[in-house]
């Protein structure tokens, strides 16, 4: 039982962390296109676009 709970905890933590990490990576890669396509502007988005 304890092993099952531990497995669940680690897998849940790893999946959520990876999901957020991948979303940030993909958004970082696409930030220029997002900015152009939808016309979003913000100082931080500009920083990320220029940082590519």
């Amino acid at each position, binding site marked *: 039982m304890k092993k099952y709970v531990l497995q669940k*905890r680690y897998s*849940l933590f790893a999946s*959520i962390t990876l999901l*957020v*990490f991948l979303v*940030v*990576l993909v958004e*970082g890669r696409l930030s220029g296109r997002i900015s152009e396509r939808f016309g979003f502007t913000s100082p931080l988005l500009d920083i990320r676009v220029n*940082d590519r």
Partner: protein
Amino acid sequence: MNMEFHIKQLRTLIFREFWEHKIAIFWVPVSIGILCTLALLWGITREPVYDAAINQLNIMSSIAQPEARVQLLGIFGMVSMLFLAPLYLTIPIYLLVCLYDDRKTGASLFWYSLPVSNAKTVASKLLTALVLMPLSAIAILLLFFMLLLLISTVLILSSGLGAGLLWLLIQSFFNAVLLIVSVAILTGLWLLPFYGWLLLVSAFARAVPFFWAVGVVIALAIAERVVFSSSYFSTWLDSRGIPYQNLSVSWTELVGAFLNYDMLYGLVLGSVLIVGAIYMRRYTD
């Protein structure tokens, strides 16, 4: 179960947080307030400080009103930093230990025996960090502002600077309070991904939650650098990491900061992490 019951439950849970973390929520801002009051009272009785204050008020009465208003807001903003900066040190510590301590002390078993859902428990922790802690600091700050206003009024009246400056001071006081409340709400929402991450780690870690919170982030940044030769993750962290970047003395800037792409993006990521923390509580070891 009706809405009133849920609100009552949430209120009780938030009160419990206040009771269990009284030092971080109440005593830290009170101590800062006492220190600032003592420093102010000590300073104003010294001749150089008194002269500098009179001199500053003289300058403000001689310059144009809009300029004087911006200067006064700047002074109120600087004073508020004394109260708000420590707040953004205590909030992460609170979030990092709140769920972890519940499991470590066995208190979570008691709360599991009550008809309180995991969502409500996590929501109460989040609301404490988002609302209760800033509210407590702002309440003490408000008292300090009132003392500052009282002393300034006495100085203005005793030096015969006129009612115009006094009226401007009162206007700036109310403006400053509204701006500070808005900045506190904005900063809380802006930092939601960090708050969510800390809650997730607090619900997950079996030991040393601080090392998990920091270590995993550093490991991911290094992994990205090594595997993809890019630094999107660390750039994103950098761009959101400074809480006082939302400090503003202009209403138009504030509205812009509430409604932009980055804010909404952060809210979505923060919500995912908070939902993760709620689910994590299902599997308590």
